[in-house]
């Protein structure tokens, strides 16, 4: 029975990847730029009905589960790590997060011009680090690769980043880079520490800009009073 299931999965994966390829090919005929991986989806939706038929069903991706940050008693504080990752689409169809389910068939390559299926959103802008296999293990896709070719398991991703960012790793170990949550005094309670990839997208590690929270009203002594918010401005800000 397990063999039948794995065969069914394989068949589905073949079909899915073929459709994906076709979409990429059709999209390349249009004005899809390689720089924006999301544009293929939006453009096909906006154009003729012929292409809409080809589109895979778009489903909301749920956020991926992350390790706990901080104390559970601090519900009033928003300790969400800055980088929110989404779950894989294929997981909804019965596939797991075991990367080898697909990748035992797909050979490792140093570089992909056009990442497919689950990896379409991957855009590698990591400075001089331009090759997949600089970090990903060529054989075991669930692991990362060390200098000597040995495996770094996924939970220890910090050691992977430390290969190049040694001084940052030293600061992180001292609790000065990144963020620790919970108890500063570990004898009184638990402490959590954010890992590299909870703030930085490893493919585009530059820290992302964000919308600031609303300005606060301070005592009048402050040099500039808050500008009066006109209704028209308010409307545009909301829309």
């Amino acid at each position: 029975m397990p063999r039948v299931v794995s065969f069914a999965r394989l068949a589905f994966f073949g079909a899915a990847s073929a459709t994906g390829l076709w979409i990429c090919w059709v999209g390349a005929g249009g004005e899809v730029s390689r720089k924006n991986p999301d544009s293929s989806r939006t453009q096909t939706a906006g154009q003729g009905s012929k292409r809409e038929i080809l589109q895979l069903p778009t489903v909301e991706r749920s956020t991926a589960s992350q390790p706990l940050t901080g104390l559970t008693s601090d519900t009033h504080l928003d300790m969400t790590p800055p980088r929110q990752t989404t779950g894989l689409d294929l997981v909804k169809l019965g596939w797991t997060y075991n990367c080898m389910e697909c990748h035992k068939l797909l050979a490792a390559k140093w570089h992909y011009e056009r990442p497919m299926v689950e990896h379409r959103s991957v855009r590698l802008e990591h400075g001089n680090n331009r090759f997949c296999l600089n970090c990903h293990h060529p054989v075991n896709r669930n692991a990362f690769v060390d200098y000597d070719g040995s495996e770094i398991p996924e939970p220890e991703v910090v050691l992977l980043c430390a290969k190049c960012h040694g001084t940052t790793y030293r600061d992180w170990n001292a609790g000065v880079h990144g963020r620790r949550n919970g108890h500063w005094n570990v004898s009184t309670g638990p402490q959590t520490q954010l890992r590299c990839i909870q703030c930085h997208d490893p493919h585009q590690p530059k820290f992302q800009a964000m919308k600031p929270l609303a300005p606060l009203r301070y005592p009048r002594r402050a040099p500039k009073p808050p500008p009066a918010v006109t209704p028209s401005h308010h409307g545009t800000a909301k829309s």
Partner: protein
Amino acid sequence: MTNPPANDGKPKTTENAAQPRSRRTFLKATAASMAGAAGLAAALKPLLALERGELTIEALLQKHYKRLTPEDLERILRKLEAACEKEYGVRASVRDIKPMAGAQYAYALNLSRCIGCRKCAHACLKENNQSRDSEDDIEMSYIRLLELDQGAINLETADHYYNPEQVPRENKYYMPVQCHQCRESPCTKVCPVQATWQEPDGVVVVDYNWCIGCRYCMAACPYDARRFNFQKPRISPAAINPDQSYLSNRVRPKGVVEKCTFCLHRTRQGKYPACLEVCPTGARVFGNLLEPSSEINYVLRHKRVYILKEDVGTKPRFYYFFEK
């Protein structure tokens, strides 16, 4: 000579000789006594609140925090819990947490990493029960976020009210300012009633029940770190943090000064302060100076730290540093 005769026949008393009673002196004396009576009435006015039941004789005669016996303090804490439940409908736990032995707190902030998202200032409000419910109210967050032009630390042109679509902006940097918990704190020196003092772990605290609201400390503070309750704090019950302590985040009465205490109800129990817990960039570093392996000691040893307004000689426990 048209002077009246020195002696008009009546025997002259000593009183008469010293102060001849004229219309002017009579009016003067009346005005003075009326002013005195008004002053006395004003001085006794709190007693009217006593009569109305707004103030108990116990609260009126409460001693300074440092002179309270443990039993008195316990009774006061329970009273504060009852008052919080009566006025805001929230069952809070008000504790008095003493300083930890062998702990001296300090804070460091990485200015290269702060992006000015204001999450710390908003988390401060959620943690410390500041008045903030109505539109005309000031939100008394203990943290002010300044947007400055790169190239100098010019506080004169700094902006509190920036609100772009995205931060950080080009050619700007951001500097959060809060209480520096100075070792040579000017605010505690000017207090006429010693309602504010420095604790053994370095945190400058206020006894809200002892503060008379003269605001001398606010004028003395070079970092604008203190806030005054011009009115009874207005907070919606859902927004009240029930984990409170006497010297830090319990709901304050009207007419007293309050300030950042490094969240002492958290830090004295070994937790990080609220502003650090929410910082998305990890720009904030908090720790125990007396513990050699602490984060703050690592910063002080390895990074070049900067002290805001070092020239005023306050010796703060709050350091800024620049480092990517």
